[in-house]
C-alpha cells in the first residue's frame, strides 16, 4: 500500500506477556517515529529512527520498551512484561525528511490498540 501500515491493529495481552508491534513505513522514508496515545490524550513521543540508527529514545517510559529498525525500513516496538498502564494506541509515523523535526512532514499509520488485561 501507499501509506504507513501497522500490525496488528488490535492486540490483547495478559499482564506479564511480551508483545511486538510492527510498522511498515512508506517506502524510501528515512525517518520513523513511534508515539503512544493513551485514552483521551494526545500522542506522546517514544522514539525516533533515522534509517537504522535510533537517534532519540528519550520518550520510552521504561526499560521494558525496546524498538529496532535493523535494515532501515520495517520497525518493531517490543514491550516486555506488559502492565496495565501500557494499554494505549501505539502510532508509527514516517517521513522522507531527515531530523527529529521531520515528523512535521510525516504520515501516521492507523495505530495498534494494545489492551493489557
Amino acid at each position, binding site marked *: 500500500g501507499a501509506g504507513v501500515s501497522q500490525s496488528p491493529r488490535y492486540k490483547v495481552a495478559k499482564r506479564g506477556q511480551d508483545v511486538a508491534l510492527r510498522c511498515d513505513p512508506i517506502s524510501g522514508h528515512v525517518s520513523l517515529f513511534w508515539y503512544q496515545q493513551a485514552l483521551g*490524550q*494526545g500522542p506522546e513521543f517514544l522514539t525516533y529512527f533515522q534509517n537504522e540508527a535510533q537517534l532519540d529514545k528519550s520518550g520510552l517510559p521504561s526499560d521494558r520498551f525496546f524498538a529496532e529498525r535493523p535494515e532501515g525500513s520495517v520497525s518493531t516496538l517490543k514491550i516486555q512484561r506488559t502492565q496495565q498502564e501500557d494499554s494505549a494506541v501505539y502510532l508509527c509515523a514516517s517521513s522522507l525528511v531527515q531530523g527529529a*523535526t521531520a515528523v512535521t512532514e510525516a504520515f501516521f499509520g492507523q495505530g495498534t490498540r494494545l489492551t493489557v488485561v
Partner: protein
Amino acid sequence: TQLLEQSPQFLSIQEGENLTVYCNSSSVFSSLQWYRQEPGEGPVLLVTVVTGGEVKKLKRLTFQFGDARKDSSLHITAAQPGDTGLYLCAGVVGNTPLVFGKGTRLSVIA
C-alpha cells in the same frame, strides 16, 4: 505539565454553527501544526504554520498562529457532521520531536 493546552476539551454543536478551538503554551514554537484524528485512525495533518501572525485557510477552516508563536486557533465556519473528530495541535520547540496537546473532541450534530 502539559506543554500545549487545548481548549475546550469537548465541544458539541449543531450543523451550521461556527466554532473556535484554541491551543496555548508558554513556550515559543518554531512551527505548529493542526491534525484531525478520527476513531481508529492515525492523525492526519491539516496545516503547518511557521510565521508569527500567519493565517491560513483550508476551505471552511481558518488557522491562526499568534504573533509571539506561543498560541494558535482553529476556526470552523458552518460546521458539518463530517468535521466531527479529535483536533490536535502539535508543535516543535528547537530541535525536539513533535509535542502534541490533548486535543479538542468535536461533535457536529445534524
